[in-house]
C-alpha cells in the first residue's frame, strides 16, 4: 500500500503514474534539445550557406551537396570508410568470438584478470591509444617492426606506405575493440544454459554443429550489436586517424576516411559549410548500413 505522505514532484496532488517519469525525463530532453537537436538543425542550415569564415554568408541551397557528388576525394573517402568498416567487422568479430570461446573453455580461474585486461583498451581514451600506436607503427624503430624484424621480416612503413595504412588503422581498431566485444560475447555465452549443449551431445551433435545450431543463434544479437558499434566507429573514428595520420588521409589518401576529410575540409581548407554538407550526406548512408541490422535484431527478437 502506498503511503499518503510520499512527496510529489510537480504538484501537491498525487501525479498520475505516467507523469512522474515524463517529468523526470524532462531535464534529459532539454539537454538533448540544447546540445544535440539545435546543433543538428544549425549544422544543416550551415550546409546551405556559402563557405564564409568571416562576415555575412549567403544562402546557396544544395550547392555543396551537388559539389560533393563531383568531388573524387569525397567518393574515395566514402569508399575507404566502407572498406575500413567491412575489414574491421571481418577481423574484430571473429577474433572476439574466438577469444570469448577460448576464455570460457580454457581460463575460468584467470577470468577476472583476463576480463580486466580485455576491458582496458576499450576504456582507454582513443587519443591515448592512438599515441601509443604511433610508437607501435613508427618506422623502422617502431615496436611492430622490431617484433617482425626479430622474426626476420623486412620493415614495413606502417604509417607512410599506402599499402599498409588501412591495415594499420584496422589493427588499431582491433586492439581497441576486440577485448571489449569479446567480453560482451563472453557474458552472452555464459547466459546460454549448459543443458542445451548436453542435449545436443546426447543427440549426437558434433561440437561444430552445436556451435552452429546453438551458440551462434543465441549470440546473434550481441554479434549484431558489435557490428553496429564497429560500423559507427568507422564513421566517427577521429582521434585514431587524426593522431596516426596527422589529420590527413595519409600517403595517396590511402587512409582518407569521411571523418578526416570532413576535418580537412573545415579546418585545413576553411570550408565549414562544405564539411557540414558532408556530415549530412553520411546520415542516410549510416541509416542504410545500420537499419537492416537493427531490423534483423528486432525480427530475431520476435522469432
Amino acid at each position, binding site marked *: 500500500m502506498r503511503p499518503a505522505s510520499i512527496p510529489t514532484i510537480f504538484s501537491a496532488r498525487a501525479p498520475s503514474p505516467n507523469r512522474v517519469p515524463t517529468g523526470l525525463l524532462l531535464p534529459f530532453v532539454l539537454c538533448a534539445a540544447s546540445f544535440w537537436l539545435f546543433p543538428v538543425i544549425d549544422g544543416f542550415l550551415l550546409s546551405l550557406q556559402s563557405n564564409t569564415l*568571416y*562576415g555575412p554568408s549567403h544562402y546557396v541551397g544544395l550547392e555543396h551537396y551537388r559539389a560533393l557528388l563531383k568531388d573524387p576525394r569525397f567518393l574515395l573517402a566514402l569508399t575507404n570508410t566502407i572498406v575500413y568498416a567491412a575489414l574491421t567487422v571481418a577481423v574484430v568479430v571473429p577474433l572476439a568470438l574466438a577469444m570469448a570461446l577460448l576464455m570460457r573453455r580454457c581460463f575460468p580461474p584467470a577470468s577476472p584478470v583476463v576480463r580486466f585486461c580485455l576491458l582496458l583498451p576499450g576504456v582507454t581514451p582513443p587519443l591515448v591509444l592512438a599515441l601509443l600506436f604511433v610508437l607501435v607503427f*613508427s618506422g623502422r*624503430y617502431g615496436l611492430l617492426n622490431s617484433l617482425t624484424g626479430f622474426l626476420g621480416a623486412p620493415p614495413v612503413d606502417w604509417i607512410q606506405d599506402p599499402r599498409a595504412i588501412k591495415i594499420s588503422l584496422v589493427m588499431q581498431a582491433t586492439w581497441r575493440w576486440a577485448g571489449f566485444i569479446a567480453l560482451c560475447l563472453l557474458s552472452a555465452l555464459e547466459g546460454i544454459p549448459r543443458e542445451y549443449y548436453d542435449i545436443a551431445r546426447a543427440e549426437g551433435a558434433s561440437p561444430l554443429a552445436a556451435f552452429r545450431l546453438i551458440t551462434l543463434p543465441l549470440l546473434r544479437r550481441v554479434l549484431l550489436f558489435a557490428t553496429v558499434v564497429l560500423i559507427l566507429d568507422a564513421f566517427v573514428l577521429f582521434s585514431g586517424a587524426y593522431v596516426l595520420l596527422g*589529420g590527413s588521409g595519409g*600517403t595517396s*589518401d590511402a587512409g582518407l576516411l569521411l571523418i578526416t576529410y570532413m576535418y*580537412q575540409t573545415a*579546418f585545413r581548407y576553411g570550408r565549414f559549410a562544405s564539411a557540414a554538407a558532408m556530415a549530412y550526406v553520411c546520415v542516410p548512408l549510416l541509416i542504410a548500413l545500420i537499419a537492416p541490422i537493427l531490423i534483423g535484431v528486432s525480427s530475431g527478437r520476435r522469432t
Partner: protein
Amino acid sequence: MLGRILAVSATCVLLLCTLDAQPGPLQLWVTSANDAKYYQSMVDLYRRSGHPKFQAEVHAYGHAEMPDKLAVAIKTGVNAPDVVHLDEIFFSLYLSGEVPFVDLTSRVRAAGLDKKIVPQRIHLFEYGGRVYGLPQSLSGIVLYYRDDLFSEAKITPAQIDTWDKFRTVGRTVHASSGRSLLSLDWSYFEILLRQRGFDIFDNAGNPTLDSPVAVETLEWLVAIAKERVGLVPDRATIFEPTFFASDVANNETMAVIGADWYGLDMIQNFAPSLKGRWRAMPLPVWTDPVSKGRAATSSFAGEGLLVYKGSQRVDDAWGLIRFVIENQEANVQRYLHGNSLTAYQPAWSDPRLHRPEPYFGGQRVAELLMKLAPQAPTVYASPHKAHLVSLWREKYWSAVIRGSIAPRTALSEMQAELKRGM
C-alpha cells in the same frame, strides 16, 4: 516611491553598461608553452615599461589545435582573441573573403616598420596590398650539419658549396659509409624552389605548381632520394619528435635544411645530448642557367602577430605588438631563449645576438643568418596555401619521394585540385 525605483534601476543599468563597456584583459593566443612563457614575460615587461594598467592573458594551444580553435571562434564570433600568434599557412585560410584581421598597413608605415623589418618578410602577412600582421622571426634558411659526422666522412662545407658538388659528395659518402648526406622533408620543395628564384604561388597568390622549374626541382629531390644522397626519415618529415629520437639519435642524419627556429628551437630542444656537434652553413647554391641569382639561403614558414578585427582593444593590441617587435630586450630574449632570430634589423646590433653558441660548437649562428638575410626571397601570401600545404605534405610528398607517382603528375594533380577549389 516609483521614482526611486526607476532611479535605482537606471543606475544599475548604467553601471552594468559601464561594466560591459570595459573590456577585460587583452586575450593573446599562441601555439606553444614556450611561446606562452615568452609572451607572458613580454606582457610583464610592457607593463613595467610605462603601461602599468595594461592587462593581458596569454593562452597556449597546440600548433595545429590553436588554428582550429581560432577558426571556430572567428566563424561563430564567440571568444575570439584580441591578438593571435599565427602561422602564415593558417593565415591563408582567411584570405578568401573578408579578412578577419585588422589592416595594420598605415600603422606599420607610420612606425617605419616596413623599412626596419627585413623587407622580404613584411610580405608574409600582406595580401591585396594590405599588411595584416608582423612576422616574429627571420625564418632564414641554412644547412644544419653534424660536424662530427662530416669530419668522420672528411667533408668540409667548402666542398659542398653548390648543389652539384653536394650531390657528388653525397654519392661518395653513401658508397663509402652507407650514410645519406641529407635527411629529406616535404618543406624542401618550396625552400629549394624559392632559393632558385621561383615559388609555388605568383605575386597574386595563384598556384604555379606546373611550371617547368617546379617540376625540375621536385625531380631533383626524387633523384637524390633514389641515389640515397637523401634519406626519407621514418615519418617522412624532420618536424616530428620521432625524427630526433630515431634518425638523429642513431647518427643517420648528417644534415638538414632548416630555418633559424629549426636550429635554435627544435634541434636544441629535441637533441640536447648532441650539444657541440651541430654546425650551420649557407645553403649550397644552384649554378644552373635557369635559377635566378646565387642565393645561399631561402625562406620557409614563420609565425606573426595579428589583431582580430572584432577586438575592442585594437590600440592596446597594436601597442603590445609594436613593443614586442621593436623592444631590444624583447628581441634579444626571443633569441636567447632558443626560439628564433628577429626580422627587426635594428635589434641585430645587440652583442648578445653575436655570441658564440655553445650548442653549435661556439659558432655565431645569428651572424650567419644576418649575413644571409639580404639574399632571402620574398614569400607571398595566397588563399590557397593551407590547402596546398595540406595536400602536398599529407597526400603527395611520401608518394612522390617513394616513386609511387611521378613529380610532374603530382604537381599537375595538385594544381588541378587547387583550381577546382578556387
